[in-house]
């Protein structure tokens, strides 16, 4: 069965949702989300250590969406805007959960899956070394990312990255990423 976006999005939006968005991920949108979530976190009585981790992970998650979206053809535009992405932030009993989603070309899955599996296999100490290695030895891409974002998220949260590739059609999959920040 092919991926049903609405079902996926509805399911993500169950529970104590702090913030939810689907649509074009633009610089303005990122600014608005960061402002709004920062105010919400300040209003909550969460300890500042956790607030900072949530904010940091949110910055990386949004910027990953912004830089690494594979563009959909025009024929999809009726349902999915240009630069389409999903962001949902939830508060669960023992953690915050930040979920992001975006379309990805089928041929790009292998590399991304390999990177996440590798990150998930590393210990805290190995992640630190991986981070420093990429920081010091690899060229940044034009977009500036340089592949550090996911390593940084894994390091700051101390949790494994949850992910799924949902088959959308023969050319595209929908990539969903779940990040937990334990409190």
């Amino acid at each position, binding site marked *: 069965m092919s991926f049903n976006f609405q079902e996926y999005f509805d399911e993500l939006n169950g529970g104590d949702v702090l913030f939810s968005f689907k649509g074009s991920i633009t*610089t303005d949108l*990122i*600014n608005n989300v*960061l*402002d709004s979530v920062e105010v919400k976190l300040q209003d909550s009585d969460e*300890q*500042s*250590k956790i607030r*900072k*981790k949530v*904010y*940091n992970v949110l*910055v*990386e998650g949004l*910027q990953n969406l*912004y*830089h690494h979206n594979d563009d959909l053809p025009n024929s999809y535009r009726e349902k999915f805007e240009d630069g389409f992405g999903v962001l949902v932030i939830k508060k669960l009993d023992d953690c915050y959960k930040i979920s992001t989603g975006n379309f990805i070309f089928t041929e790009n899955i292998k590399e991304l899956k390999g990177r996440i599996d590798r990150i998930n296999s590393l210990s805290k100490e190995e992640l*630190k070394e991986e*981070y*420093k290695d990429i*920081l*010091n030895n690899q060229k*940044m891409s034009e*977009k*500036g*990312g*340089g592949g*550090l*974002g996911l390593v*940084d998220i894994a390091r*700051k949260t101390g949790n494994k990255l949850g992910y799924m590739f949902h088959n959308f059609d023969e050319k595209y999959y929908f990539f969903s990423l779940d990040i937990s920040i334990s409190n």
Partner: protein
Amino acid sequence: MEPISFEGTPKTPTVNFNADTGIVEIKGRSIPENSIEFYKPLVDWLEEYKENAQPMTKVIIQLEYFNTSSSKCILDVFKKLEAVHKAKNPVEIHWYYEEDDEDMLEAGEDYESIIRVPFKMVEIVD
């Protein structure tokens, strides 16, 4: 040399680089989508500063947040400072972090292990 003086914004830090005093300061947040553009003038300034560096350069880094796109640019800034230090004009980097912010302390330690310049970790207590 003309100093650099940038006002901070919600996504970019306050920057004060002064060749007369030898004080180099970056404070606030560094979370722009494209950091290279923001940091290029800072890296260029330090390249020029190396030729006329003060006998002692004090670097103050006090960041609340920085993204991974900035982390590479901050390393480029530190590499230029390392060149000043190597040219026998000592540099000292003061890395500030809030008392409960272990991630920021660790980030400073990462740089300390890569860059051959003395670091001072300074805890900010409320």
